[in-house]
């Protein structure tokens, strides 16, 4: 990883289509080291796709992407990923500890077992997210918010420089939401964070910059979102969606 002026993600004119319909149009995005970027937008606006483009799981039809100055496939080794709805069946026979251990896979690779150090790292991560007491529980026994914490721990044990979270606050109650944000705020001291959510209310004081995404990305590298952008993104009267949003998020209308 070479010197990059602190730019860790660069997307240049990125387009993605699913079955000929554009999902992402002309996306330009720069993310700097230690940013905490919140991307909001309606469901189907391409938020998950954008994260998958950064991870190299979705190939764009056009455009250039660099992740830590590498291709997404190469750069993903520095990324900790917390998927939206982890694809698993609640009865899957696996414990919380084993789930988090998966995050250590890259350190070992084929034909090598997890080590004592891996176990320590896993335990430490579980303590950090406050889930160590559930380490032997089967993952499906946990609540949505608890599972989310376990998946954050799984992302953390790979010791990432960038954390990508897809709707981490869906199905999470108010108290858990606060806890999760405090945790993310603390993690942001060590790593860059990108969080996507369809819920404008999900954006908290910990988030440093905000972007809006609905196929097109509206981003000014700031914490404010312009009212016009929000209206365009959500395509509905701003009063309706502005309800309950902390005022600091929306820029004053002239």
């Amino acid at each position, binding site marked *: 990883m070479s010197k990059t002026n602190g730019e860790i993600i660069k997307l240049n004119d990125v387009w993605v289509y699913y079955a000929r319909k554009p999902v992402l149009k002309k996306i330009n995005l720069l993310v700097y080291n230690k940013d905490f970027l919140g991307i909001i937008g309606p469901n189907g606006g391409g938020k998950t796709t954008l994260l998958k483009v950064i*991870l190299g*799981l979705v190939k764009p039809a056009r455009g250039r992407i660099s992740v830590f100055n590498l291709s997404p496939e190469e750069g*993903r*080794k520095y*990324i900790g*990923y917390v*998927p939206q709805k*982890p*694809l*698993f*069946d609640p*009865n*899957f*026979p*696996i*414990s919380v500890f*084993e*789930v988090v251990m*998966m*995050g250590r*896979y*890259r350190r*070992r*690779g*084929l*034909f090598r*077992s*997890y080590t004592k150090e891996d176990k320590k790292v896993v335990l430490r991560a579980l303590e950090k997210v406050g889930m160590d007491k559930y380490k032997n529980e*089967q993952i*499906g026994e946990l609540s949505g918010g608890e599972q989310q914490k376990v998946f954050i721990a*799984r992302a953390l044990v*790979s010791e990432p420089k960038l954390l990508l979270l897809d709707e981490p606050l869906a199905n999470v109650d108010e108290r858990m939401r606060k806890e999760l944000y405090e945790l993310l705020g603390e993690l942001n001291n060590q790593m860059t964070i990108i969080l996507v959510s369809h819920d404008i209310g999900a954006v908290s004081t910990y988030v440093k910059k905000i972007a809006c995404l609905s196929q097109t990305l509206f981003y000014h590298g700031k914490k404010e979102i312009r009212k016009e952008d929000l209206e365009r993104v959500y395509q509905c009267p701003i009063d309706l969606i502005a309800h309950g949003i902390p005022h600091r998020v929306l820029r004053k209308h002239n």
Partner: protein
Amino acid sequence: MITLFKYEFMRNALIAGVLVSFICGIMGVYVITKRIVFISGGIAHSSFGGIGLGYLLGINPVLGALFFSLFSALSIGIIKRKTKLYEDTAIGIIWAMGMSLGIIFVGLSRGFTPDLFGFLFGNILSVNLSDIASIISLSTGVLLIIMLFFKELLIISFDEEFGEVIGVPVDYLYFLFLCLVAITVIVLMKVVGIILVIALLTIPAATSSLLTKNIKKMMLASILINILSVVLGLPLSYLLDAPCGATIVLLSGAIFLLVFLFKSYVL
């Protein structure tokens, strides 16, 4: 019951039944947790094409079946990964094509087709020492590969996408795994036949999934349930004068039902 096992064919049947329980129990747990029950069914049925080809060309039908099952495993994998066809559509096509080819080949061979019924419905009583040797070698191979890739298989069974992000060679392992299923089908074929292979892969693992949420304990439980079905099923089929394979499968289903009812209404 003891006297029954003084016959050599009964002893061989018992040995074979116990031996296949290992591969069956372990692969079965993957088959149900990875949700590939019908992929496995497709692979099993399409191997009938190979049986037919074996008769037609005068080679060992088991070899033909192995070739067909590996081929259909890879085809299903490719269709699932590289095309936009639905998985169950792909399974349906391959399942039916394999069976049809088998029927045509058997028809074309015109000659004597011994054991045809055995391949379809199983004939554990005809197991001989060389069958036992091939069960041992194939099972050992499959189980060694499982041990070697245990942590990878756990990751991709649980969350394939995360596996890709964290650097697991997801595609290769998926194909490798389908090939293991194909080999397992061939190992089990002798015991219960092509048509019932899917039962032996699914039922004991499903029963064990009711008993524990730990994958290794599940595999162990599944092996033991398999062994139990074989050890009880063989004499039972003798007493009832019923076909062995089907009796073993029904017994295994009865154990599932008992455990299910016990868990639902007693616990």
